[in-house]
């Protein structure tokens, strides 16, 4: 077959044969036997690939490797540390362009916004700062940059916590806000921002370790510590937290009433489960279970009046629920100015089928990576650099 007329179907055949021949799993002749239609070009190109694979390069001398390392260490000492910091107003150019327009439209109010930038919870202009953040979040959502902004908001909340603690003004509410924004940053992180979020959580962990422990903050602080260790999934994203609210504040309180009917045999048990959320949110849900006991059964369910999510019935009858046994929880987010609602949490915590780590790579030096293709992700990235420019990191 004329080489110049080889159809595109030849390319994957060649590639398949290259993989098996170069790895020693098959020989050139065995591959040709599978694809006799392309015997000549396969033979030429497979043999050429085998020759190329045998080309050796001299190693970089040990002295050169050591000298370069010493030079790099010296350069690192004199280079400013690349401290991870996300200034609140450092956002994408597209969102910044829109913000400039908004700034101009706001007019004299812009001064107020700038004046509020360093305010802390409890300060006079802090509500202005929060309003401005919601505007930016709204705009960023339009441009698909919400993940970026959530990360910056989390950094801002962290800075506020540090400042409040240094002034002896740290409150549980500040920690709750830090938890919420950090959870949102983790939940919305894509493959671009995942690494930055992980860096932020490392930094936050170190910062919070330096904050004085107080008994009134213990629960939320523990929630934060648990949150600041996000799991990296195989696809490069982060495992979303089960809730964007601190778990210690969202444990349900169960208040149960029941009116068992001894006769006739059908008993109706009504369980009311209320969730106590932040003071502005008190969603309630009701689940109804209809029990049909055997004639000798006398239902006397006992529901503890304090926090247990699942009512325990003793003895356990045959249950024919007339409704979904698990209460459906309606999550009402804390409304942000401008009507921006944060991403609601997932209904149930992640299951164990989600793997906590990415597939490890094999040794780069021996040449074989085992990571799955990230082709679709890679294709959304910036294309390769122009010839004379450094690649965009």
């Amino acid at each position: 077959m004329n080489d110049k007329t080889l159809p595109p179907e030849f390319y994957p055949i060649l590639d398949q044969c290259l993989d098996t021949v170069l790895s020693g799993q098959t020989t050139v002749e065995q591959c040709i036997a599978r694809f006799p239609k392309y015997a000549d070009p396969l033979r030429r190109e497979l043999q050429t690939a085998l020759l190329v694979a045998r080309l050796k390069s001299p190693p970089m001398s040990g002295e050169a490797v050591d000298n370069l390392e010493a030079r790099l260490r010296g350069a690192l000492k004199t280079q400013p540390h690349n401290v991870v910091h996300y200034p609140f107003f450092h956002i994408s150019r597209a969102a910044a362009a829109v913000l400039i327009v908004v700034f101009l439209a706001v007019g004299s109010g812009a001064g107020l916004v700038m004046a509020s930038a360093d305010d802390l919870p409890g300060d006079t202009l802090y509500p202005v700062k929060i309003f401005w953040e919601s505007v930016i979040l709204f705009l960023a959502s339009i441009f698909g940059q919400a993940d970026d902004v959530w990360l910056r908001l989390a950094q801002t909340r962290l800075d506020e916590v540090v400042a409040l603690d240094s002034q002896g003004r740290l409150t549980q509410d500040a920690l709750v806000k830090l938890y919420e924004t950090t959870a949102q940053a983790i939940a919305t992180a894509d493959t671009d921002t995942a690494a930055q979020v992980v860096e932020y959580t490392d930094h936050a962990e170190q910062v919070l370790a330096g904050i004085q422990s107080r008994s009134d903050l213990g629960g939320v602080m523990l929630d934060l510590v648990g949150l600041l260790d996000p799991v990296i999934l195989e696809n490069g994203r982060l495992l979303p937290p089960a809730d964007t609210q601190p778990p210690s504040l969202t444990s349900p309180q169960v208040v149960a009433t029941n009116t068992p009917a001894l006769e006739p045999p059908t008993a109706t048990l009504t369980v009311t489960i209320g969730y106590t959320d932040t003071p502005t949110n008190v969603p309630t849900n009701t689940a109804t279970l209809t029990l049909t006991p055997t004639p000798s059964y006398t239902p006397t369910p006992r529901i503890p009046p304090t926090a247990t999510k699942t009512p325990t019935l003793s003895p356990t009858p045959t249950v024919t629920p007339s409704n979904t046994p698990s209460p459906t929880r309606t999550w009402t987010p804390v409304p942000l100015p401008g009507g921006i609602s944060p991403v609601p949490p997932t209904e149930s915590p992640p299951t164990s089928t989600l793997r906590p780590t990415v597939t490890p790579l094999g040794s780069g030096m021996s040449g074989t990576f085992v990571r799955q293709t990230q082709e679709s992700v890679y294709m959304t990235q910036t294309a390769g650099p122009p010839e004379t420019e450094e690649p965009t990191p």
Partner: protein
Amino acid sequence: MDRVEELRLLRQAKRGDADSFAELYRDNVHAIFRYVYHRVNDTQLAEDLTGDVFTRALEGLGSYSDQGKPFIAWLYRIAHARIVDHYRRMERRPVESDVDDEPIPVTLDMDEGILRRQAAKVLREAIAELTDEQQQVVILRFMEGHRIEVVAQIMGKNANAIKALQHRALRSLAGRLERAGFDIGGIIAGLS
């Protein structure tokens, strides 16, 4: 080095931890040197350019974003840019290698060892005459042994484009060897 460890070292290195960067350097320096050497065929130049690659990487580390690709993918792209810049400054593509002698015409009674060395020399020259992209594919795929998906990541192309590139590169190299009088099959048989 697995991916989780690499990410951890990158985080530390970005905060100025010299030991972490040194570990990343040691883990990748030989692969980058080999890549550069195969592109420029000059040991001293390859060492200089390799140093340049890691110096640039250090300077750009603060703004480096993982993007789901291994660190070495970024290093390869820096290396490619440095090599292209070097050629632009030189205003030519160098064809000479560390060995200065002219290729000896192939004869039937040629010693096998000499034959293989001659073939290697012709092959290096032929690789140097490939397009930039074909050179990258040949080095990353056949010399460094990376899978096609990884090569695609490094080069910013899809796998099908890489498959087409490798075919054209191999066809070109095979033609060059045959025109120089080499029996590729015979050389392979002699190596076995």
